[in-house]
């Protein structure tokens, strides 16, 4: 046992959906600050479910989950909002707003945080530059390719300068080449101190990167080790 508080701590965590289906059965997991953790496993293993619990989108049905020592099980609405503002989320289904520009999409978290517009503009420009979308600021997301959209999602997760980024299948439908580029991007965030939890069904892809790999199957952790890199 280390005495330091882990960034994320789960004890006997279960999650049952309202329809009665139990997607996670007793997960025990500690994730330290600064880690780069890949969450592997086949489709339906419970990866998305786990990420949603970390981001406070869903509530656990049993056990407990703590973020920086704070129990998330029964957080009040304002505490939950503060939590979500401090986590960068990359969603499997992107959740981009197609009636807004690339720039406006990336700016959304900062508007929610109530940042002044001058500072917002500066940070959005920097985030778009970082993911290689510097020249697309005023385009519609509809004009972006799959890989570019994914990078826009990452810019949006990044712009609030969160200590934790949670990404759900960020290499989802991308060609291997694009997928690797995305992972390299994440790796660079990790090197600058951001903790990352990345769910992927394609474990071969992540083997090229240095990191921890937790394999999930049918709502249980099957293995917990390092990638081969």
């Amino acid at each position, binding site marked *: 046992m280390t005495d330091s508080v882990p960034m994320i701590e789960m004890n006997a965590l279960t999650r049952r959906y*309202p329809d009665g289906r139990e997607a996670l059965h007793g997960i025990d997991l500690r994730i330290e600050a600064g880690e780069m953790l890949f969450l592997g496993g086949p489709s339906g293993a419970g990866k998305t479910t786990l990420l949603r619990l970390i981001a406070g989108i*869903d509530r656990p049905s049993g056990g407990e989950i703590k973020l920086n020592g704070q129990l998330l099980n029964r957080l009040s*609405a304002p505490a939950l909002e*503060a939590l979500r503002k401090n986590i960068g989320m990359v969603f499997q289904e992107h*959740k981009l707003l197609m009636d807004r520009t690339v720039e406006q999409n990336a700016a*959304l978290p900062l508007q929610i945080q*109530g*940042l002044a517009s001058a500072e917002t503009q500066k940070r959005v420009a920097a985030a778009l530059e970082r993911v290689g979308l510097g020249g697309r600021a005023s385009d519609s997301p509809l004009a972006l390719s799959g890989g570019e959209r994914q990078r826009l999602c990452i810019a949006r997760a990044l712009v609030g300068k969160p200590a934790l980024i949670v990404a759900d299948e960020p290499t989802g439908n991308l060609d291997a080449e694009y997928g690797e580029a995305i992972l390299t991007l994440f790796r660079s965030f990790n090197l600058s101190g951001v903790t990352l939890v990345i769910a992927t069904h394609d474990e071969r892809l992540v083997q090229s990167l240095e990191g921890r790999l937790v394999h999930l199957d049918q709502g249980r952790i099957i293995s917990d080790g390092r990638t081969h890199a």
Partner: protein
Amino acid sequence: MRSLAERHVHAIATATRRLIAEPLTHCLTILVIALSLAVPSTLYRIISDVAFMAKGQAGPPAITVLLRTTVNQDQVIKLSESLKHHQNIATIDFVSPEQGLKELQQRLGSDDVLAGLDHNPLPPALIVHASSSDPTILLALQKEIAASPLVDQAKLDADWARRLHAMTHLLEEAIFALALIFAAAVVIVVMNTVRLQVTAAREEIEVCKLMGASDAFVRRPFIYFGMLQMLLGGCVAFGMTEAARLGFNTLSTEWLKPYGLSFEVQPFHGAEALIGLLLALVLGWFAASSAVSSFLSRLRPR
């Protein structure tokens, strides 16, 4: 960080953008709101002015008290002294049998009303002017006076005024009920348009909530949207009421002139208009926030 004022300005800008994004739809909505606000307020304005005029025309209501012929001077003085202090009585006039006869002769235009009679048959009378025109108070007063052993009869004058009073009172209540119905209609109309707006923006709302937006942040532009519709509806309604008022006044002048009468409905004064507008804004706020809230409650973590 943005100040609270900046956030509100941002929300108002968003609401305005949504409003002008679909001008035709929202113009129609605003027209419906305006009509719903204008109909009861125009009726109210006319009825309350008619009632006011009717009261003025009728003069202070009076009770004619016919005393028994056996009553003497002292008793009359005593009775009128005691009535003078009654809280619902303003003034009392005494009419002696001689005065009564004179008035009767004048009214009939004849000197020999008494032909064939050996004495004046008229009783002494009191004309009691009440201080209130409330029919229930008048009736109670009449009964009270009639109960005195000195009194033969107490008659309530100006029956038509009393009926008019009762009728305008009833109309006012009907208008109030009508206003409630129209208010409910306005709330439903605004709720529905806001609900449509919310549905159109559901993805945006969901994404904002996922990124930690508070309910207030999400709700704010929709509430301004609802209130903006109400504000515009209220302004159009004000124009409609004014137009209706001027039209009514032109007609009433035309109709009443031959009889030497005149009647004009007065415009709403500033305070009335302001209260009306505030009320409309409150309705808009209520309608919009309940439309958004029901959607937001579905997004809470389970």
